[in-house]
């Protein structure tokens, strides 16, 4: 690709071409004028030649008459030849205007030759008188020739007057032409240079602008350069680079966000663990004690107490182990049931739990200890304050590509501010946490786990009850990423 080079070449060629045309035309014109001048000058010179030759002839004749020597004779013959030559030369000068004078002129030359001849002849015959007469006649004829030459030149001038004037006019016009040509070429060159430079600088300017935009960090503006040379190639490459940078940038941003989320997740987990560790002093000891108590109760025949103690131990164990790992919904439901058993032992007839479970979705993964805090929340707000107890409904439903887990109660309901607080994830004071994990902790963990905001929905009417829905996607968004 060498478009810019081509442009420069073509500009140079155009300039060269114009210069060549002008040079050729001027040379042609000059040659033509030169020829014309030469032709005109030649005419006058030829005419003058006749006069000069005829005068020379007279002089030589005179010399010969005075001293008839061989040398003078030769000289005379040479002069005669000269006159004849001159006469031949002016034959071409004949034209319509000077036809008559020209004929006279020719004849005058002939007369001169004849008279010279006669004078020469008489001299040779020793007739000096007659020879002298002829000589004077020849002299007169020579004078007439000179006069006629002037007349002819005069006629020439008249004939060619128009021509001469035209030549003068044209050479004046040539000056004008020069000026016009200069103006025209200047104009054209300026125009062409303007276009040419613009075709180079404009794309560069655009490119610079785009580069500036990029430097400012705006990667979303496409780079468009209308040009057909290297600049456009450059622009295309540049644009590709921009797109690549943009993609990389976005990717990095995403990664950073993920990293951030992960960090938060870990922090929350650590917080939970710390809290649970703080709350449960020496859990293993407690766990073993609960098991011994269960066996003891069983041996003493208090089977119900034994079962309750087993539930408490299972719950405790689950709580200790499963906090930092995803579990299946099934495990979560088992823990929930154990928890409810304990609560049933506490509230006996006041607690009515209704469960509707679609068994087929129990394989869905959720973060551990998510359902228990919510149910606990419902128990605390529904069963505890009411004298004659209350109802709690627990449902697992299929809603397309998500699994809805609904926990409903008919308790005193929640204030709007409280709901907003929970949804924002503010960890306010939590009432009666048996596991050390509050409602808002659950919400945060769910959001982090699924990578989306819309995981929970709380509807509550004061005095009538609360309905909490968890929307669990059947497939985790970035499965396998962590």
């Amino acid at each position: 690709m060498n478009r810019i080079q081509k442009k420069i070449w073509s500009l140079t060629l155009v300039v060269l071409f114009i210069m060549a045309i002008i040079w050729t035309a001027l040379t042609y014109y000059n040659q033509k004028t030169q020829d014309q001048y030469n032709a005109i000058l030649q005419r006058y010179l030829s005419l003058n030649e006749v006069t000069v030759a005829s005068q020379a002839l007279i002089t030589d004749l005179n010399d010969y008459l005075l001293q008839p020597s061989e040398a003078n004779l030769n000289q005379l013959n040479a002069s005669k030849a000269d006159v004849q030559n001159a006469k031949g030369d002016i034959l071409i000068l004949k034209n319509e205007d000077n036809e008559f004078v020209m004929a006279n002129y020719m004849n005058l030359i002939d007369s001169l030759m004849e008279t010279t001849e006669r004078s020469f002849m008489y001299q040779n015959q020793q007739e000096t008188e007659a020879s002298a007469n002829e000589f004077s006649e020849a002299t007169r004829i020579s004078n007439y020739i000179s006069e006629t030459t002037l007349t002819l030149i005069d006629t020439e001038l008249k004939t060619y007057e128009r021509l001469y004037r035209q030549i003068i006019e044209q050479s004046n016009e040539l000056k004008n032409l020069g000026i016009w040509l200069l103006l025209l070429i200047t104009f054209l060159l300026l125009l062409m240079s303007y276009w040419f430079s613009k075709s180079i600088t404009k794309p560069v300017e655009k490119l610079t602008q785009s580069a500036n935009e990029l430097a400012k960090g705006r990667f979303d503006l496409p780079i468009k350069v209308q040009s057909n040379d290297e600049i456009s190639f450059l622009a295309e490459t540049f644009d590709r680079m921009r797109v690549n940078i943009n993609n990389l940038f976005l990717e990095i941003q995403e990664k950073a966000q993920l990293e951030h989320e992960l960090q938060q997740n870990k922090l929350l987990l650590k917080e939970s663990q710390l809290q649970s560790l703080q709350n449960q002093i020496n859990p293993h000891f407690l766990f073993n004690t609960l098991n011994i108590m269960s066996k003891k109760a069983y041996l003493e025949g208090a089977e119900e107490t034994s079962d309750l103690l087993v539930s408490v131990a299972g719950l405790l164990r689950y709580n200790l182990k499963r906090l930092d790992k995803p579990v299946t919904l099934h495990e979560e439901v088992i823990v929930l049931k154990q928890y409810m058993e304990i609560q049933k032992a506490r509230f006996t007839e006041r607690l009515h739990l209704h469960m509707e479970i679609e068994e087929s979705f129990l394989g869905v993964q959720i973060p551990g200890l998510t359902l228990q805090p919510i149910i606990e929340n419902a128990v605390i707000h529904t069963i505890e304050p009411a004298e004659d107890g209350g109802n709690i409904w627990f449902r697992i439903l299929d809603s397309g590509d998500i699994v809805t887990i609904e926990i409903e109660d008919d308790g005193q309901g929640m204030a709007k501010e409280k709901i907003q607080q929970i949804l924002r994830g503010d960890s306010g004071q939590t009432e009666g946490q048996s596991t050390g994990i509050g409602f808002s902790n659950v919400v945060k963990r769910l959001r982090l786990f699924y990578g989306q905001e819309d995981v929970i929905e709380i509807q509550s009417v004061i005095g009538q009850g609360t309905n909490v829905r968890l929307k669990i996607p059947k497939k985790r968004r970035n499965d396998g990423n962590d």
Partner: protein
Amino acid sequence: MRKTGIVLLSFLGVVLFYFTFQSAEKVFRSDWEMPEHAIEPVNQHRLILITKNLDTPFWNQVAQGAREQAQKEGVSLEVWGSYGNNQEDFLEKIEVAIYSKVDGIIVQGMNSQAFNELTKIKASFYNIPIITIANDAPIEESLRRTYVGSDQYLAGQMIAKQLLADMGSAGKVVLMSDSQQEHYQKQRLRGISDILKDYPDVQLVNAETLDSREQIIATTQDILNRVPDADAFVAVNADFTGVMVQEIGKRFQVEPFYIYSFDDGSDSLPLLEQGKLDGVIGQSPEMMGTVSVELITKWLRDESVPFDKEGVLTDIRMLKEKEAR
């Protein structure tokens, strides 16, 4: 803004192109060719009309007639001559014409040795026919082929008759003529005296003068002194008319005099119109030109019978004051 710029620029471009091409066309237009070289040899006969008095009304008419006829005949003709009766120039022109070997010379006759020598010896040597026009030169001396012009003897007679009719049969008549005694003046004088010799009461006074202006003035004054009671003047040489009338006018009223002249002087007709002349012999200059060219062309083409030695006479008539107007 941009649009106006483009329009302006295109306009400028068009204007520049227009003027440049206009200019270039003017420069490179090559219609200034040299006149065509006449290739074919000159077959035409070349004639020359030579006079002593170029650019006088009379001779202009002669030349015009001759040119028209030459064009008709297809021969080339040039009018040469001297101005104001310059004889030296005149003779030189004849000589050049002879050396130029023209085919025919039509010349105003002249009574001089040099003229006769040229026409008789030189022209014959080069075999060039010579015709005298308007003024004759005697054939014996000039060997001219023929004469074309007025019958000068008859003209003299007409003047004399008119004079008798105007003045009556008694009076003094001054005849102004050239001292060189040109042939045509001799004939005019002969014509006048042939008529007037029958009238003994008419006294003729011959005044001869050289033809320079000073001489004419002197002679006229001398005559006016010698013949104070002259009744009539005849300018036998028409060139004298103007000066003569002027000199008479210096002394007397011009009207009472009977003054006659011929139309081959440049002053004659204007003076007649002014009423200063009583009569002028009118000749036919155009006819002279026409006839002379016609004759010489015929002779050159061998078509014609030999020339009439006496000459071909053209019309003359007496112009009176009122006719001239």
